[in-house]
């Protein structure tokens, strides 16, 4: 290629690249594929992607497959239990999502922290224990919401521990407990669990270092 042609083509290419960049940035919009990928990454991995939970899940899944392969009768029973657990998870999952959405939409974490601060002491202990008693669904479904209350609303870990302990009181299962163990035992067990939920909170508060307590509330 003659030298003069070369010098002409370079600015043309550069102009083309610049033009395509301009096209991409029209209205500040990103191409749809990249946007979707970013959305999925942000939803499943968060702001700073961490793949470790996925590796752990993959290893556990392979272990599970191994169990099914080597112990087929036990494996088939485990699969039926897995299906049962997954079906039972759907509604708590939706419930927790709605609850978190409501908290996100209507509640300002700083305001919530102020409310907790105003309620600190016995009122917050009672609220934590009552919330634990009436909460439904598997315990692990509550961890994300509790983690946000701890991180954003600075709720002390003692109250979280009391909430989790009070979940042992199952009002809907109370008739079954009476059926197996009688009135006196069932009432005593419920009372003991309520009292020990408070003790658990106090002990956890005492054990946890100040830096991990969510110390702004109830301090």
């Amino acid at each position, binding site marked *: 290629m003659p030298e003069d042609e070369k010098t002409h083509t370079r600015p043309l290419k550069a102009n083309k690249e610049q033009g395509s960049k301009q096209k991409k940035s029209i209205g500040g919009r990103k191409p749809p594929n990249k946007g979707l990928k970013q959305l999925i990454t942000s939803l499943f991995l968060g702001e700073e992607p961490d793949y470790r939970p996925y590796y*752990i*899940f993959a290893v556990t899944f392979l272990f599970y497959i191994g169990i099914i392969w080597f112990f087929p009768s036990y494996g088939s029973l485990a699969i039926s239990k897995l299906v049962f657990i997954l079906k039972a998870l759907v509604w708590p*999952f939706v419930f927790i999502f709605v609850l978190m959405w409501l*908290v996100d939409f209507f509640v300002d974490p700083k305001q919530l922290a102020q409310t907790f601060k105003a309620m600190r002491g016995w009122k917050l202990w009672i609220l934590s224990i009552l919330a634990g008693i009436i909460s439904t669904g598997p315990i692990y479904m509550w961890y994300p919401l509790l983690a*946000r209350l701890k991180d954003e609303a600075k709720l002390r870990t003692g109250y979280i521990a009391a909430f989790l*302990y009070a979940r042992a009181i199952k009002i809907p299962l109370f008739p079954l407990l009476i059926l197996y163990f009688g009135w006196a035992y069932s009432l005593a067990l419920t009372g003991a669990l309520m009292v020990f939920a408070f003790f*658990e909170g106090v002990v956890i508060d005492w054990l*946890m270092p100040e830096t991990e307590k969510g110390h702004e509330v109830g301090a």
Partner: protein
Amino acid sequence: MKSLKSATMSAARAVLKPLPIILTVVLFLSLISALPKDLYTKWIGNDPLSTVIAAVLGSVSAGNAMTSYILGGGLAKNGAGIAAITAFIIAWITVGIVQMPAEAALLGKRFAVYRNVVSFLFAIVIGLLFGVFFG
């Protein structure tokens, strides 16, 4: 108050991000739930050591609280002491060895360990107290 889109994204992220940990826990839960139930009656009797064994078995077990009541009823029929049965039921509901990875990932390792250890000890304490009052 956040915008509708921002609140939806934030809530979805908070629920979806821990999904692999929760699914890992669910896989382990299904394996433990499928274990034979006569395992418990073999180990739990009517002596003080049974209270500790019952608390250990309750801690490593997982599943609905209803199952622990039914198993507790079965243990009572097999002659297990009230202290052991109480420790077993309480440990079943309050200690979560299987759920611990999820609890540690979201609420902190130290919190998860302390909470489970304290719950385990409380299960034995309440069990022994019930043994005194109801035994």
